[in-house]
């Protein structure tokens, strides 16, 4: 009963925050729930350096792997090390507890394999994150836990980088294809349910395996379970990209941490648009060292280096950037940029436009609705 009391208090907290903060700037709102007012903000460089060190420690196995700590480090760095890890863990523990309760109350029907308990839990996490869950307390009062929805306003965090964060998702109950699968995986790790992140062009989803169905995909953005053929056909996925494991492959622990490193680099670039090359390149190089066919990191690295090329173009005063290839001092840089782009393309990396992407997400949802009709 104490647990229920906790739920109630937490929901109350979240609800009041929602009502109170919806009108504020999103960044402030996202932070409000987790910002520890006792902590003094740190300088950007030192805040990011701290997060970087933590990720390196995990990658080099000096510190045990923990996605919760890694994600928190990335987001905390953006908030100048002012977030409270305790509250972050608490809200994940709450979701885990809720999922466990849900699995107990609503077990999956007609599933008779050895991994029944696991499938039950996975189903419960999915339900808790994507659907309204009702709870009853001691006084027979019913409480509702609302689903986490997709935020169509800012799908790639272009307006506000915070929109891609898990803390924003936890606070405002809406997220995107970055924060939603991350949250699922975080909750799954709390419950020791195996779940893997998987990539698609400009997209991320969850892959899991059950004895009855084999590998299956969980799509949090549209709350569906799309099949591979559909994902590849509609999601602009080249077969070479599948063959080369650029897309639609499960990410190992090291790869997941490399993904966090790239998030860290992108956050830093948002924080310091003028001067970020050194730190960003450091992060991307390390990510590529642990995840060599990480095409997104390749392209980001090439983008950063091309900015250098543009600066050099201005310096040399040449009209055409290809003329830089002739300069012996610039040639290695030029070819390395070229090679990075070519390699990413050959691996099957593709970028989709936002219109295509949003249409795809909606199609996925519609397909699901059509399937549900008798």
């Amino acid at each position, binding site marked *: 009963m104490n647990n229920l009391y906790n739920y109630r208090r937490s929901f109350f907290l979240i609800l009041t925050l929602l009502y109170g903060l919806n009108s504020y700037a999103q960044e402030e709102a996202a932070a409000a729930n987790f910002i520890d007012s006792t902590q003094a903000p740190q300088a950007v460089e030192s805040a990011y350096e701290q997060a970087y060190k933590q990720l390196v420690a995990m990658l080099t196995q000096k510190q045990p792997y923990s996605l919760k700590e890694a994600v928190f480090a990335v987001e905390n760095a953006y908030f100048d090390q002012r977030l409270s890890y305790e509250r972050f863990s608490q809200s994940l523990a709450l979701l885990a507890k809720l999922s466990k309760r849900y699995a107990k109350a609503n077990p999956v029907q007609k599933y008779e394999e050895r991994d029944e308990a696991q499938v039950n839990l996975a189903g419960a996490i999915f339900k808790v994150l994507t659907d309204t869950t009702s709870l009853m307390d001691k006084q027979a009062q019913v409480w509702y836990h609302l689903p986490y929805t997709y935020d169509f306003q800012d799908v790639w965090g272009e307006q506000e980088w915070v929109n891609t964060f898990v803390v924003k998702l936890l606070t405002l109950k809406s997220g995107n294809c970055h924060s939603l699968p991350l949250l699922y995986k975080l909750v799954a790790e709390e419950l020791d349910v195996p779940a893997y992140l998987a990539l698609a062009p400009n997209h991320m989803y969850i892959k899991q395996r059950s004895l009855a169905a*084999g*590998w299956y995909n969980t799509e949090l953005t549209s709350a569906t379970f799309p*099949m*591979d*053929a*559909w994902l*590849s*056909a509609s999601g602009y996925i*080249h*077969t070479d990209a*599948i*063959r080369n*494991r650029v*897309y*639609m*492959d499960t990410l190992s622990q090291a790869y997941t941490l490399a993904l966090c490193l790239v998030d860290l680099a992108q956050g830093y670039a948002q924080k310091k648009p003028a001067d970020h090359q050194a730190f960003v390149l450091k992060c991307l190089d390390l990510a590529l060292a642990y995840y060599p066919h990480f095409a997104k990191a390749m392209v980001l690295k090439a983008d950063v280096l091309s900015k250098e090329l543009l600066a050099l173009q201005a310096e040399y005063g040449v009209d055409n950037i290809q003329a830089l290839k002739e300069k012996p001092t610039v040639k290695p840089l030029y070819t390395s940029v070229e090679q990075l782009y070519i390699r990413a393309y050959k691996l099957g990396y593709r970028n989709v436009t936002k219109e295509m992407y949003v249409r795809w997400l909606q199609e996925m949802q519609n397909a699901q609705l059509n399937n549900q009709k008798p």
Partner: protein
Amino acid sequence: MKRFSLFLVGYLCVLGSLFAQLPTQPNPLVPQVIPQSPSFSTFQPPSPHLQLRQQQHQEAMQRQQQVLRQHQQAIEEFKAYQRQAEIRKRQEAYAKQMIRYNLGYKASPQATAHYRKAFRILNAMLEGTMPLSLRDAVFAVENAYHNDTLDQAAFNQSIEDIASLLKAYVKKKKYAFTTDFEKNSALVYLMQNGIRAKHPVTKKKTTIVPFRYDFEDYWGREDHTKMFVTKLLRTGSGNCHSMPLLYLLVAEALETKASLAFAPNHSYVMFQDEAGKWLNYEATNQFMASDQLMMGSGFIKAEAIQHGIYMTPLSKKEAVAQCLVDLTLGYEAKFGMDDTIAHFVSPIPKHAPRDIHGHMTMANYLTALWASVEKQLLEKKEDYKERKDLEKFPKAKRALMERNLLYKTLDDLGHEPIPAEIYERWLNQIQQAKQATHE
């Protein structure tokens, strides 16, 4: 009187021992009879009568010893007989309890000789002692099923004929025919539309009619020859096994690059365009299919592509290794599942590690083996009632574990059986197409 009685006693004893039953202990009276005692010489002075009697005594003694030896011999023989009977009984009891950990051979060595010959040819190609030739491999497989009665020269000629007619045709039409892509395009045209051209050797005008899909028994379940290229050449209609193979055989004759590729329960052709992109040619209904269509209609998961089991162009060696699987299919259709099949697919993991069909055949064999072992356990072992009792039979347990491990490998590679409802839908589509062609 005393002497006489002594003699009589001795005589009776000899007689008694002669008529005694064979398997008895040596007569206890015998030591009394044998004149070993010194009393004879001390109490009785020697006399001619005595000498005679002593001689008679010795003779009787010798006879007695002979009888004794015979007696002993008979006992030994009887004991040996008893030992052998014991061994035989134990052997029979053991045979009743023994578990066979193989499936044996279902046919005589004479009957399967052609199959073993084909296996030796294919294995030699894989080992590199014979040149790799898909045409020879395919012929070996089909010839084995036909008990070595097919004419290889005629088979080679019909493939060469198609190739040379195509060459003559494109020459007459002045089509480009130098790059792999151009040759493949011409071949696709031939499969789809057929051609009419003058044969360069016989100078006869010859027509090749387009190859058709044979909707009757398209998996060769009733008639295994439906799978064969020789059947396709003879009748002009084939299935998703023979049609891609014929394409590849002609491509091999034209010395152009094209590869076999798989989807679940299906095979097709892949070749590269001029930019190096792989294209899919669906030889059964003769169109160029997109990757996404192959993936969607074949129910393929990302893992299967990552591990290269489906939608991946096979090398020539892998295609020849696949012929070994075809060989086992023919063998099974003819003779049933036995140890030969495990032997035939055994070289595949070494030469074509990503060939899913080799693993699947082996999994089928191990399933049959385990079923046989479990049946024997239930019949012969009283302490085996259910799977839990396997702990007492480590060898049987290993047979089950080996099978389960292979199934796990199959799952990890991304092989998924097509769900029943999707499979049915697909069958219905084929049925509709079939009706459409009949109308």
